[in-house]
């Protein structure tokens, strides 16, 4: 009961702040919490990254194995994305198979990578109709303080950027080569709180938002994915406003956290 009252008070507090253009942690509406990206942290993975956005933490590991192609795409590699809401991350996460929220997260991250064309799947064919590379992208949420989508999507691309095909291990050649990455899609999530649009919602903000919407944009500024999630409706004006915001913010994040990583990876790739 008392929990409900605290929730109520918190809700009113956040609402009132938002009405006055403010947020609990002092950020502007279009401001992200501090972002940290650390890569190559899991030695047994072919690629990996840890992303923090504020207190939110996710680890993304990429494993690559040879496998059979799908019957309808005999000459293309496969991407399999999974998200685990590890129960260490939140009192509301329970052990068990992914629920609808984890499933949605995995599918949004997956489409962000797949449909944006970030990975050139045709280059992941080993022998047409016989063998392809299967790219497993596994997202583990370690600490959930809101905006899991942006953290996970950023982690996925950062991990893919430092991923190498395990060619030597599977005796398919003498050198492991980097995964061919052709775009750097970035997901930007906005929350609608009583008509106000806030980027990078914290967990408290998410809980009272009427809806969330994620906009994924590519290097060339085009939209590469959208997912509205939540019960509240949005107006057309809101959606155009959010796509504008998303485009700008994605550019910043891409430059700051991915293009640097990309360069580093390629540098280190040469050294290996």
């Amino acid at each position, binding site marked *: 009961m008392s929990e409900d009252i605290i929730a109520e008070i918190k809700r009113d507090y956040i609402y009132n702040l938002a009405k006055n253009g403010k947020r609990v942690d002092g950020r502007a509406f279009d401001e992200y919490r501090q972002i940290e990206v650390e890569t190559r942290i899991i030695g047994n993975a072919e690629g990996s990254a840890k992303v923090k956005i504020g207190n939110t933490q996710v680890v993304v590991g990429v494993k690559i194995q040879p496998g059979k192609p799908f*019957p*309808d*795409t005999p000459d293309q590699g496969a991407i399999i994305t999974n998200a685990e809401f590890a129960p260490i991350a939140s009192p509301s996460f329970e052990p068990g198979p*992914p629920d*609808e929220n984890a*499933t*949605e997260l*995995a*599918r949004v991250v997956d*489409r962000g990578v797949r*449909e*944006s*064309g970030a990975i050139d799947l045709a280059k992941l064919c080993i022998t047409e109709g016989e063998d392809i590379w299967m790219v497993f992208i596994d997202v583990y949420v370690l600490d959930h303080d809101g905006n899991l989508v942006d953290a996970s999507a950023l982690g996925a691309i950062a991990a893919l950027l430092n991923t190498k095909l395990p060619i030597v291990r599977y005796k398919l050649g003498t050198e492991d080569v980097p995964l061919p990455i052709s775009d750097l899609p970035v997901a930007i999530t906005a929350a609608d709180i009583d008509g106000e649009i806030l980027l990078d919602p914290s967990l408290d903000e998410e809980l009272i938002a009427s*809806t969330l*919407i994620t906009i994924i944009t*590519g290097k060339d*500024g*085009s*939209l*590469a*994915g*959208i*997912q*509205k*999630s*939540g*019960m*509240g*409706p*949005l*107006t*057309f004006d809101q*959606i*155009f406003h959010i*796509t*504008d915001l998303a*485009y700008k913010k994605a550019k910043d994040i891409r430059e700051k956290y991915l293009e640097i990583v990309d360069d580093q990876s390629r540098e280190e790739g040469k050294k290996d």
Partner: protein
Amino acid sequence: MSDKPNKLIEKGKRLDGRKVDELRPIKMEVGVLKRADGSCYMELGGNKAIAAVYGPRAVHPRHLQEATQVIIRYRYDMASFSVKERKRPGPDRRSIEISKVSREALAPVILKEYFPRSVIDIFVEILQADAGTRTVGINASSVALADAGIPMRGIVSSCAVGKVDGEIVLDLTGQEDNYGEADMPIAMTQDGKITLLQMDGHLTKEEFAQAIELAKKGCKQIYEVQRSALISKYEGVSNV
């Protein structure tokens, strides 16, 4: 893949003869099931689906009840034979996601506070699939909810728009979806509130704006079909 056609749009006409802003043929019938509290059968081109509504009814187990409003559940399911390659019966990750966003597409118009401690179940069975099944499910469900007498603020209408051969088109077929550049399902209320929005592929900002405009038109047409279907069922009643 070898069976990609050279062109999906030729001289403004799509492979099935439609113009870029045209919907596929629609058939909609209300009240097709006896046991369900509300039901609707819908065909949209090669799609065939049935939506059924049960409720409001009691929630079991009781700890799932909500004290101040009705719970909405939505289950989208594809029959094993609805697609070329037999699908294993039961939910998969795709259907779990579609069920979630479809529920969220319909929930905003339902007057949830009318039925505290209850649940409304919406079940959609896709019998035959040819792209756009989630929009068919939402459209049919919206009508089935009305058929069940669930009090609503309005009807939700849904369609997909996308980009095919560089053009923005309405209501993609499976072939257009496979070989097109973008697919964007959308649902909205008559007063222009968006309740579902997803997009895969690539769209410039200009194309996106164009797609949204086309979607508005598509949903308007869908709405007219939904309205007619409801009227034709209740004509007798409304004439009284």
